[in-house]
């Protein structure tokens, strides 16, 4: 056992214990660590935004280099502050409209292409799927399972008709696929959370307490 003398490692270790103490019950140590984290994260974000974004990208070109074109984004950005003045608070709609307009234009075609068209293409059975059994997700077996899974799961979410007859059968199969999906998601969630716990124990037993290398 080789306990560290580094004060920063000690601070980090003690804060870890404060956070883990919540597992016993809510307590002031946990609250202190939680509030400290939120405060530090926000302070870091704000400082970094001012020094690495606003100053080099806006204030410096506009006020030091005299590039007057930057006055336009500066003015539009400043309109966000108008919401604090009741009489002219409606002006805040202008920067919001600019932001929404830009993002809508940028997001819609990209989302349709990447998330809808390509995903539908991925579920279509093509002759190449039937050429090999063992081709990963492109082999016959998995392609057919994927196809059945997508169709049956979609049919489960079709509520305009009562789930009877063929629709009843497909929607029941759909439920099985959904449950398998939930199971996989839960399993992965457990793995993720346990990984985070392992990471903290690696730190506590390693750099802090020196029990492991």
């Amino acid at each position: 056992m080789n306990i560290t003398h580094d004060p920063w490692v000690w601070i980090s270790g003690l804060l870890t214990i404060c956070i883990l103490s919540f597992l016993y019950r809510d307590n002031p140590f946990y609250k202190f660590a939680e509030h400290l984290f939120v405060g530090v994260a926000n302070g870091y974000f704000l400082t970094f935004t001012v020094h690495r974004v606003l100053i080099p990208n806006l204030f410096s070109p506009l006020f030091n280099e005299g590039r007057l074109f930057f006055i336009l984004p500066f003015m539009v950005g400043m309109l966000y502050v108008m919401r604090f003045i009741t009489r002219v608070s409606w002006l805040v709609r202008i920067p919001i409209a600019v932001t929404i307009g830009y993002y809508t234009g940028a997001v819609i075609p990209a989302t349709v292409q990447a998330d809808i068209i390509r995903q539908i293409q991925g579920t279509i059975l093509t002759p190449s799927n039937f050429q090999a059994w063992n081709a990963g997700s492109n082999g016959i077996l998995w392609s057919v399972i994927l196809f059945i899974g997508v169709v049956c799961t979609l049919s489960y979410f079709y509520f305009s008709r009562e789930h009877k007859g063929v629709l009843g059968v497909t929607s029941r199969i759909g439920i099985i696929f959904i449950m398998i999906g939930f199971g996989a998601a839960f399993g992965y969630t457990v793995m993720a959370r346990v990984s985070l716990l392992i990471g903290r124990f690696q730190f506590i037993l390693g750099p802090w307490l020196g029990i492991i290398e």
Partner: protein
Amino acid sequence: MKVIEYLSQLDRRIVYLVLAFAVMLPLIIPSVQRVRVMTPVAKLFNAVDAIPDDRILMIDFDYDPQTLPEMEPMGIALLRHAFQKRIRVAALSLYVQPLGLAKRALDQVTEEFNQRATSYADSVIYGRDYVFLGWQPPPIVPLLGMGISITSVYTRDYYGYRTDSLPMMRRVRNFNDVGILVSLSGATAPLWWVAYSQTRFGVAVGAGITAVSASEFYQYYQTGQFSGLMIGMKGAAEYEELVETKLMLVDRRKASEALGSLTAAHLTMIAFIIIGNVGYFVRRRSRKGVVK
């Protein structure tokens, strides 16, 4: 039966304690875990390995302290792979929180290589072998802007140097010079690279993601939108295995070291789930008996 009933009503704090021991013991008494490399990770490794000399590997470090144990080993393994193969690296972050963690990974791997280096040519040099572009908000600016010009989006790097003055960046103009972009993210950043950068500019995208988001990302691998995929600590351990066995690069493997704990924790969880369910049915049966 009373034992089962007692176990199924255990205080949650005892469950936490048992889980903590299950995680700690394999760390203190290490056991050898065989790492079997799965296809998604092998594909990512091959895609990085096949980057030609005139192209670079771009790594998007987008994990924060909450997901560090899963994600950092991925970043370190990727950097080791790139530096060992002399593939030039451009690192960046779409958010502000990961910047410090990205720098930590870059510094660690650079130091590992420079300690072994015997000459200037062998060393890993900033500006020649890798650059850290830093952070340029909002994310849509680098996602779309780098398709036209990387140095216009990131005029200055993380350290404040002009990017067009760095030797490596003189030959790197836009996504056409990127062999593959690997996004290491605890959120949805890899999907943004696919939706914006890949759809519009055709850049190849790989992803390293947390296990919790795996079921959300798998379909993009199945369609080929991701060239490869690393999932959670297990994925990181697989990449570490490939780096060690294929490149003969032996270094500390933090994700592989954790696999014993991961297995022990999973077995503990499975045991508790079984005990909980058996206990539920036993109690239900005994309650029915009382009603009769």
